[in-house]
């Protein structure tokens, strides 16, 4: 890999909340246009890590960070416009989180906040985003109905579309299918595979099998530490660490 391919460069990252260490001395790189999956049991720092990448941890007043996080070689914690960062790095949460607005207004929310008012242009963006998130066919006739009326799987794809509407470069997924049934899960996973052609994807999952199915590389976190990081099929066939093996075979977690 050449350096230009590195999207996120994380060096000796430490994260604390109210003095409790959530991430310990983490160093890793995420490459452009890969699906980077993170597995590990509860409380292993997966979500804290994800939230460090778009500075959502900043909302927690007890949050303290040392080390560097670089996006395209720029330190995002050093004079970086946070709004711009979050526009470039979108996130999809564990539970579908539509705003209590119509489908259209949900997707148009981001572009509007960035100053776009023209209804025609907004419509174009909404359509394009919904198509990319595989939702257009299901909702095109009811864009003005409340987003809460959609099913869980549809809501989750709506949230993906909402991110796409602000033209991000990186998409973070925080256990996006943990509340979904098998069919909806499969649809979201299909969407992930296609999205990686245009976007860099970082996926946190508590479903080990999901990491095996969709990840290009997989990192195993435990108690805030990176235990192992490798090509996904290597992690799942010959893990280098006993603890990784114990986890993916279900000895704990």
């Amino acid at each position, binding site marked *: 890999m050449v350096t230009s391919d590195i999207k996120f460069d994380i060096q000796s990252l430490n994260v604390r909340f109210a003095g409790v260490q959530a991430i310990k001395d983490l160093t890793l790189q995420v490459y452009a246009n890969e699906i980077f999956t993170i597995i590990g049991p509860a409380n292993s720092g997966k979500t804290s890590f994800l939230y460090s990448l778009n500075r959502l941890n900043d909302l927690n007043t007890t949050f303290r960070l040392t080390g560097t996080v670089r996006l395209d070689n720029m330190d995002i914690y050093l004079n970086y416009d946070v*709004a711009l960062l979050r526009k470039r790095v979108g996130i999809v*949460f564990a539970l579908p989180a539509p*705003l209590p607005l119509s489908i259209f207004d949900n997707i148009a929310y981001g572009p509007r*906040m960035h100053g776009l008012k023209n209804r025609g242009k907004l419509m174009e963006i909404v359509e394009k985003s919904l198509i990319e998130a595989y939702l257009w066919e299901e909702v095109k006739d009811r864009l003005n109905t409340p987003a809460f009326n959609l099913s869980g799987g549809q809501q989750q794809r709506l*949230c993906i579309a909402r991110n796409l509407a602000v033209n991000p470069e990186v998409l973070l997924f925080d256990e996006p299918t943990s509340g979904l049934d098998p069919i909806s899960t499969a649809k979201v996973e299909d969407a992930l595979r296609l999205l990686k052609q245009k976007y860099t994807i970082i996926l946190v999952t508590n479903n080990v099998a999901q990491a095996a199915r969709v990840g290009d590389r997989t990192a195993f976190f435990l108690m805030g530490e990176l235990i192992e990081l490798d090509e996904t099929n290597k992690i799942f066939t010959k893990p280098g660490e006993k603890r990784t093996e114990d986890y993916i075979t279900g000895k704990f977690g």
Partner: protein
Amino acid sequence: MNAKIQEKIASRILFFCTVMVVLPVVMILAIILYKGIGAISWEFLFSMPRNGMSAGGILPAILGTLYLVAGAVLFALPLGVLTAIYLVEYSRDNFLSRLIKLAIVNLAGVPSVVYGLFGLGIFVTFFQFGASILAGSLTLGIMILPVIITASREALESVPQSFRVVSLSLGASKWQTIRHSVLPHALPGILTGAILGIGRAAGETAPILFTVAAFYLPKLPTSVFDQTMALPYHLYVISTQVPGIAENVRYGTALVLVFLVLMLNLFAIIVRSRFRKRKKW
């Protein structure tokens, strides 16, 4: 079963306690309605008092209360909502925010007559507004400030955190997030608080005793620097200070005041329960 009997007795006693609280409310309202309804007429509501207030209407008192309440809300609503926004959205858990919260708690506990003293000291005397609608409105406004702040805080806190996180994660700024993703959903709650504040302001007597209220005025006020009559003070005056007022005039005045205040509260309760049913999160 011993435990079962114990349970029966306990719940009877508790039920009786509740009756003791609620029954008097019903009785008070029933008495006022029963004895006061006869006094209500077009003339009573819309004309000036005559014959040393023993006849005629209570129009100046009704209008005066409306003026005072409007002034109080104009002052307290923006200030209260902004304070709530500061506490919920901007402040961290530090010394300043704790001090502000303590101040609000204490404002809520200051006796209404002390507000009256304060209004007299600062608005009437120090700023030389005199006893006037302006001084009275500001005093009432300060008195209802904690009501509005508390209700607005609750309304803002009940907006799910995910709405903020989602908005911020899409690159919206902090104020944009508050403006577009938080306030619209807190609005009914804030409104409820405002209405409750209005009800409180409309019914209070002590704060306006020395800041605005007039015993009797022959004409309606024409500017914010005029004194005015007000319903609660009027009721106090005709029931304790002026002998020989017919009973139904007193009850009628009480009825108008209670009706005004309770309608506001009822309205607030309805707005709130409607909103609770409608919201999906």
